């Protein structure tokens, strides 16, 4: 359950620039995607 909440939070985090305007949006989007990728890589998968 916790895993699903975290993953949905990452997806919602991608929408934040539409709610709050800030000039480093470009870097923010790259950072969120990179962090999500790191999370996917590190977390346990079903077969592990």
């Amino acid at each position, binding site marked *: 359950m916790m895993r699903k909440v975290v*993953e949905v939070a*990452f*997806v919602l985090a991608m929408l934040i620039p*539409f709610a709050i305007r800030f*000039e480093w*949006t470009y870097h923010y*989007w790259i950072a969120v995607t990179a962090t*999500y*990728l790191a999370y996917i*890589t590190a977390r346990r998968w079903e077969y592990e």
Partner: protein
Amino acid sequence: MNDFMALVFFYAILGTAIALYARKGTKTQEDFFVGGRNIGGLISALTYAATTYSAFMMVGLVGLSYMTGVGATGFELMYLVGTLFLLSYYAPKVWRLGREKGIVSPAEIFAYRYGTLTAKVATVLALIALIPYTSIQMIGVALILQKNAGISFASGVAIASILIALWAFLGGLRGVAWTDAIQGLFMLAVAILAVFWTYNYIGGFGIPKDLAVVPNEFWTPLKFATLTIPWFFFALTNPQVFQRLFIPKDEKALKRMVVLFGLFGLIYTVLVTFLGLDLRFGTEIGKFPAVADRDEVTPTLLSMMPYWIALPLALSIIAAAVTTANSIILTLSSMVLRDVIGEKTRIVGGKIVVVVLTIVVALFALKRISYIVELAVLSSTILLCQLPLILGVFHWKRGKERTGLATLMCGFITAIVLSAIKHPMVSIATFCVSFAVFLAVSLIDR
């Protein structure tokens, strides 16, 4: 033969040699269409990436970033996050189901759950959605050949057809996957080179203030949602990438495929959008001409680059188009052969369908019918009607053939009708109608 044609010739010879080497041991349809379910994680990741990232990236997304700013980066990264989100959850389930049920074509997952007629209709919808999309890739290759090699458009279509069909015909999935892997690495390397050259030429990087934030004039929340929804679910709805979930040799390779694809996608997206934004910065400081048509941004850049980088960049755009197109053709062939014709053993039928579909795509490309572009843009929205059925396989026990047929038909009609009247919420409406019909019909479909 000029230098570019010589480069294309070398590319064709190299790809053919790889496809011939890769085809060893291809005896059954399972070998031909899904590589015998025995592909390693790295090759799976690179073929997934090369299939996903078409010529749209280096032409369309560069132009979109140039014209509309960082929203284009958000759009493409939202696709990537969505794909990772879906794959990290569904990829192991689809992979296991594929092995357990011997599923080879993506539509067979519908046949297993919603009946063979649903699989047939899903195949027809995939043909309607993806043949125009593949034609656009072929037109792109033909135009690059016409401009850089000085040949006619028709000759360009003929060469593009051979490039697209040959490696799938010779080596099936293994031929496509191995050539995809080499081309994917080439696309990435050339993109890095192009960014370095452009950064040095412009003399820095910056984003004009009005393009550094969203929402802006182009990227309203509605526009972002409309464009993003079909792409967010691309991994489940587009058969050419869905079929790739069957190919890794074990679950470790499957995880490696997802993670390495994510890494490729992140790097490639950042490079491509950086290029578009940097060129816009160049326009602001007078180093790059102002371009009014966003599809002309990359051609303008190519015309300004030195020979040694312009030629590989043009070839990388051809590679991006070919890797996407041949994967689509191979997947559609598996669907036509297994789900419509019903031939599930011999691979010669697969080879014939690869040739026939390539000829159909070439005819579309030669005609250049005006509605091809509209249908190509609409492709992912049309395929969105399959989403409830795929999710239903794993989460919803109700619903059989009537549910499958009603969902596909209502979703498809919604997409076509709303697109014809240019309704701004076409993808959102298709999404909602498909789910509503699926739930409603499944409750009475026993």
